[in-house]
């Protein structure tokens, strides 16, 4: 749709409201963080970010985010497939359940995990220690970022006609080959976009990992928990630096993923005609 040329007063007012709103909410904090961090030049920022505990927290955040993304990409694909392609009793219930992480506060998720797996919890004899440990943090990170791949892939999968797959079958392609060569390329964009969202959500997660992990410095402290503790300790430069680092990483992920998501037909037109 094309924008209308602006002529009267009311549209200008609307635009002004949007600009001020976005400026205050999105831009102002960004400016504040950057100016705060670089108040005394770049040196303190570099020192703060290369401090041992800062690096440890970043490493933990990355480990959790990437592992959760891999798990949710694979499981999300399977869940989406089952929900779109198969019929079973109670399907509507599972379909609704997938959105649970969207509506439940992450703090509650962390708390429930402790209630379940903590020292006095119902499942306290679970073979893997989840409360106040890395596995527990991974589980809650997977939980809070679960819906993204599923919800991105489902509509794309639903829009695929079965006939393309059947055409591949009649041409001798096995089920796996058909998935790999026909279905996957068609839903690839949905998967990638789902992974971007999963990664972004997992990188920024605070409440759930803070509660289940306990935020033990150097052990279960993620980058976001590091920022929170730095603020408490009046370590402003540490908080600013980590915030900028996470922000830059997030923007970087978006850029990389957008590049990966290029229009597939561009790639197709580079294909050399086999008839030439």
């Amino acid at each position, binding site marked *: 749709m094309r924008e209308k040329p602006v002529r009267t007063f009311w549209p200008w007012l609307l635009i002004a409201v949007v600009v001020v709103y976005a400026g205050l909410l999105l831009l102002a904090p960004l400016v504040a963080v950057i100016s705060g961090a670089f108040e005394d030049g770049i040196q303190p920022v570099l020192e703060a970010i290369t401090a041992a505990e800062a690096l440890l927290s970043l490493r933990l955040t990355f480990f959790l985010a990437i592992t959760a993304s891999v798990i949710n990409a694979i499981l999300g694909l399977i869940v989406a497939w089952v929900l779109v392609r198969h019929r079973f009793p109670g399907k509507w219930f599972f379909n609704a359940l997938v959105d649970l992480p969207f509506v439940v506060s992450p703090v509650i998720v962390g708390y429930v995990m402790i209630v379940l797996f903590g020292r006095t919890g119902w499942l306290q004899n679970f073979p893997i220690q989840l409360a106040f440990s890395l596995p527990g943090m991974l589980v809650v990170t997977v939980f809070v970022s679960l819906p993204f791949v599923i919800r991105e892939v489902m509509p794309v999968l639903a829009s695929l*006609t079965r*006939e*393309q797959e*059947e*055409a*591949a*079958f*009649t*041409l*001798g*392609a*096995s089920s796996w*080959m058909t998935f790999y*060569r*026909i279905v996957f*390329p*068609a839903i690839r964009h949905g998967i990638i976009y789902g992974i971007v969202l999963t990664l972004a959500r997992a990188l920024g997660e605070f409440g759930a990992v803070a509660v289940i992990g306990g935020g033990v410095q150097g052990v279960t402290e993620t980058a976001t928990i590091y920022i929170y503790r730095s603020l408490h300790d009046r370590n402003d430069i540490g908080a600013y630096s980590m915030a900028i680092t996470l922000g830059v990483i997030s923007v970087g992920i978006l850029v990389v993923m957008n590049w990966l998501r290029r229009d*597939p*037909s561009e790639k*197709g*037109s580079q*294909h050399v*005609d*086999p*008839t030439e």
Partner: protein
Amino acid sequence: MSILLNKVSKKYGAQNIVREFSLEIESGELFVLLGPSGSGKSTLLRMIAGLTPQDTGEIYLNDRNVTALSPQKRGIGFVFQNYSLFQHMTAAQNIAFGLEILRVPKAERDERVHELLGLIGMADLGNRMPSQLSGGQQQRVAVARALAQRPEVLLLDEPFGALDVKIRAQLRQNLRDIQQRLNVTAILVTHDQDEAFELADRIGVIDGGELLEVGTPYQLYRKPQHRFTATFLGSVNLLAAERNGTTIHLGDKRLPAPPQTDHLAGQSVEMMLRPESVEIALTPENLEGHLLGSGIVESIAFAGVLERVAIRVQDWEQTVHALVNPDKARELNIRPGDHVYVGVRDFHLLPLN
């Protein structure tokens, strides 16, 4: 025998989709399965391809029992109504897909793709993505893709259903040429009688999941065995009559029985008159064929090459439709309300059931 179906049946729940369907199709034949929507024709085609499992019965392709085989192993090519090209592959890649699956070496594959693109008249368009092709072009690519592996049998499910009339006629001829040049056995499913007439060596008429009758287009049009066939293939006038000995009694008129209808002797029958066999004249003496009766012209409508005249025949209170040459119509100079005599040049008999 290229394709042999033996009592193939399919039910969905309590509903019979295909009922004890038996059919033999010769090598190199283009067989058209013709029926209204919901008659089970597509389901039958999908069962031959192995895409839908049959409940009972056997399917043989070139004397090989494929009843229990997956679609991958049946050696068939399938063309879907909505093209179903792989959207992320070029036309050439689509055609090459089946050859890649067979691990045909690249050089040979490229040559085959080139040959097939030439066959469908799209030698320069191999590089296009499906979204850059017209519907007709996409359908031709779908045919080439189905033929790439040199299948024993080509199955086409309403292949021209989504195309406009002009393109459809063009593609029909194109398909017939290709089928004959490659001498591949083909079954085409359609609800379009024109398509069936133009393409078919033989037509099988299917209704309610049952094969009613099989014959050449001429046989089915002129001498059908079933009322359904008579009405489904073109328009027709049906008049209740009796066959006594070799005479047809139509009201007070007596007509000689047409050949090949002895099995209907002594029965109540329906006379089947194609509108183009019906004559109109101002006096009974001017009729070339047999006099049926006289009536009032109800309407005259332009119908392309011919004019369609509806006459209300007084003796049996029924409207008879005639297709008349425009020159003839002008010569008669008839108008709605005029009194005319109706005759028939040739007709066929159907059992009353």
